[in-house]
C-alpha cells in the first residue's frame, strides 16, 4: 500500500524528467538494498551479543561491513541525522553509535586473562576495560550492552543511537516487505547483483530461485527490515532535486 502510493508520487513528479524514472528506480533500489544490508548486519551484531561466546572474527567482519556502508552513505549524504538538535553535528555520531554496538561484543571477551599468566604481558586489569563496559563483569551478556552504567554523556548518545537502531529494526509485517519490493524491478535476491556494482542495463535478471536457499535457513533473515521513514526521506530528496 505504502509502496504503491510512493511510486505514484514519483511518477507524478517526474513527468517532465526524461529517463529519470529508470535512474530513480535503480538508485533507490540500490539504496533500499544497501539499507537492508545495513539492517541485516546490525541485527547480526546484536545477535552476537546474545550468543554465549560470540565469534570475534565474525563480529569484526560484520562490523567492518557496517562501517563500509556507513561511510558510503555518509559520502552519498543519505546518512540520516540523529535528532533535530543534532542536525548540525557531523554524521560521525552515527558512526560512533555503531562503534559502541560493535565494541560491546568483543569487550565482553576483552576481560583480562587470569593472573599469574606469565606470558610476558604487562597489562593492568583496568586498562583493558573500556569506560562504557563498567568495571564489574556483566551478569548477563545479552543485557550488558543495554544496562551498563556508563558516564553520563556516553549514556546520552548511547540511548539516542539505540533508539535509531531500534527504529530501523522495527518489526514489519513480512507481506509488507513483499509489497515494498514488488514495485522494484530487481528482486530482493538481486541485492548481490546491485551491490557488486554490476548494474543491469535494462532489466536485472530474474530471481535465481534462491527461495530454496533462504527457506532452508530461517533465522535473522526474517528480521531484515527497512526503514520506511528513511525511504520516504530519501525519495523526497531525490524528487526535490
Amino acid at each position: 500500500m505504502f509502496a504503491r502510493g510512493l511510486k505514484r508520487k514519483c511518477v507524478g513528479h517526474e513527468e517532465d524528467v526524461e529517463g529519470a524514472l529508470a535512474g530513480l528506480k535503480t538508485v533507490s533500489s540500490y539504496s533500499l538494498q544497501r539499507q537492508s544490508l545495513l539492517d541485516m548486519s546490525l541485527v547480526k551484531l546484536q545477535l552476537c551479543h546474545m550468543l554465549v561466546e560470540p565469534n570475534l572474527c565474525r563480529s569484526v567482519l560484520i562490523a567492518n561491513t557496517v562501517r563500509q556502508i556507513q561511510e558510503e552513505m555518509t559520502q552519498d549524504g543519505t546518512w540520516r541525522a540523529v535528532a533535530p538538535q543534532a542536525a548540525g553535528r557531523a554524521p560521525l555520531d552515527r558512526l560512533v553509535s555503531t562503534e559502541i554496538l560493535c565494541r560491546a561484543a568483543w569487550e565482553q571477551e576483552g576481560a583480562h586473562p587470569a593472573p599469574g599468566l606469565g606470558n610476558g604481558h604487562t597489562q593492568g586489569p583496568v586498562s583493558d576495560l573500556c569506560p562504557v563496559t563498567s568495571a564489574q563483569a556483566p551478569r548477563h551478556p545479552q543485557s550488558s550492552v543495554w544496562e551498563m552504567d556508563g558516564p553520563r554523556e556516553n549514556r546520552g548518545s548511547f540511548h539516542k543511537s539505540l533508539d535509531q537502531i531500534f527504529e530501523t529494526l522495527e518489526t514489519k509485517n513480512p507481506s509488507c516487505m513483499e509489497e515494498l519490493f514488488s514495485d522494484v524491478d530487481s528482486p530482493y535476491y538481486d541485492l548481490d547483483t546491485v551491490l557488486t556494482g554490476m548494474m543491469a542495463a535494462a532489466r536485472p535478471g530474474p530471481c535465481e530461485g534462491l527461495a530454496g536457499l533462504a527457506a532452508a535457513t530461517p533465522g535473522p533473515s526474517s528480521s531484515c527490515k527497512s526503514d520506511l521513514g528513511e525511504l520516504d526521506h530519501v525519495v523526497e530528496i531525490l524528487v526535490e532535486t
Partner: protein
Amino acid sequence: MQNSNNTDIISTVEFNHTGELLATGDKGGRVVIFQREQESKNQVHRRGEYNVYSTFQSHEPEFDYLKSLEIEEKINKIRWLPQQNAAYFLLSTNDKTVKLWKVSERDKRPEGYNLKDEEGRLRDPATITTLRVPVLRPMDLMVEATPRRVFANAHTYHINSISVNSDYETYMSADDLRINLWNFEITNQSFNIVDIKPANMEELTEVITAAEFHPHHCNTFVYSSSKGTIRLCDMRASALCDRHTKFFEEPEDPSNRSFFSEIISSISDVKFSHSGRYIMTRDYLTVKVWDLNMENRPIETYQVHDYLRSKLCSLYENDCIFDKFECVWNGSDSVIMTGSYNNFFRMFDRNTKRDVTLEASRENSKPRAILKPRKVCVGGKRRKDEISVDSLDFSKKILHTAWHPSENIIAVAATNNLYIFQDKVN
C-alpha cells in the same frame, strides 16, 4: 550409522607423520583415532583399511564464571607429534585449553606378585617367606590415552590453530588476537610472540585466523588474517614478532569490489607445503598458492566454487559466508584439496591444471566403488548428471579434510561422517 546428534559433528581430521594413524576430533570433545591395518601378504588386493584404534574424551565443557560464558568442548585442532618411542603423542585443543595426550598400547600384564593377596591387599610381610618375581604374560591389546600435559589459561580469545615446531620441543597456539609459544615440558608459562590487540578495542578491524610453523625452519612461522593477508615472522628478529619479515597480500581487483569483498578475502586456513617453499591459503571462494619469495601476489589461484559469487548476499544472510574451509597438500605438493558445499570436495592438480569435484555421500558411494566426478551447472541448460547451484545443500559442508603424508589416501569429514578414500588398486 544414522546419528543426528550434534556432538558427533567432526571438527578436525589429521593423519600422523607416517599415515599409520588418523585422528578425528568432534564437537563433543571426543577424539577418535583410527589405525591402518597391516597389509597382509595373503590378501594382496586388500589395502590396509583404517579401523578404530582408540577413543577418548579429550575436553569437557567448562564454564567461565568470570564472564558467565560457556567454554565449548569442541575440538578445534589436533596435531600429532613425530613418533619418538613406542607411544604416540598428539596435541588437541578446544577454544581455550591445549592438551598433550599420550596414546600407548598395553599387551602384556605382570602376573605372579606374591606381595599382595588375591583381593589386592598387602600381605603381612611376616608371612612372606619367598620373593617371587612377576612374569609378564600376554593380555588382550589395550590402547590407553592419558593426558600428559594441560596448557591452560593462556588465551583470552578463541584458539584457532596449533602447530608443532620442527624442533619438536616447542609448539605455538594462536587465538584471534595473540599467538603464544610453548615448551612441551612447561605448562604454567608461555611466551607471547604475536599480539595484534589494539590498545583501544574500538579500533579492532582485523583478527588472526590461522597460524603454522615452517616445516623445517624452527624460527619461522606464518599467520593469516581476516583481511586476506599473510605475515611471515622470524623469531630470531625479536621476542615479540609484531613486525613481520614478509607480508603477503594480493592487490584487490577493483572490478570485483562489493560490500562482501573483505569478508570473502578473509583467510580461513594457511598451510606450508611439505617442501617449505610455498604456502597455500583458503579464502571463501578460492585457494591460492604463494611462493615465499614473492609477496605481492600468489603464483596460483584456484576457483573452488565461483558460482557462489553472485549469491554472496544470501550466503551472508544465512551465515554461510563465514564458514571456515580448510585446505591440504598431498605428500608431493603436486595436488591440493579443499571442501565445498553439498558434501562436495575439490582437488586441483598443480602440474596438469586439471581439477575435479567429488562428493562424499553414502548414497553415491558404496565401498570400493569409484567416485564419479560431479559438476555444478551454473546457468542455462542443466545436463543430466549436473546439479544446479540452487539445488546445492548448504548445510552439508566439507570443512575438514586430510591427506596421507605419502600415499593417495584422503580423509574427508562430512558433518558427522568420516569418509576415507584410496587410490584404485589395479
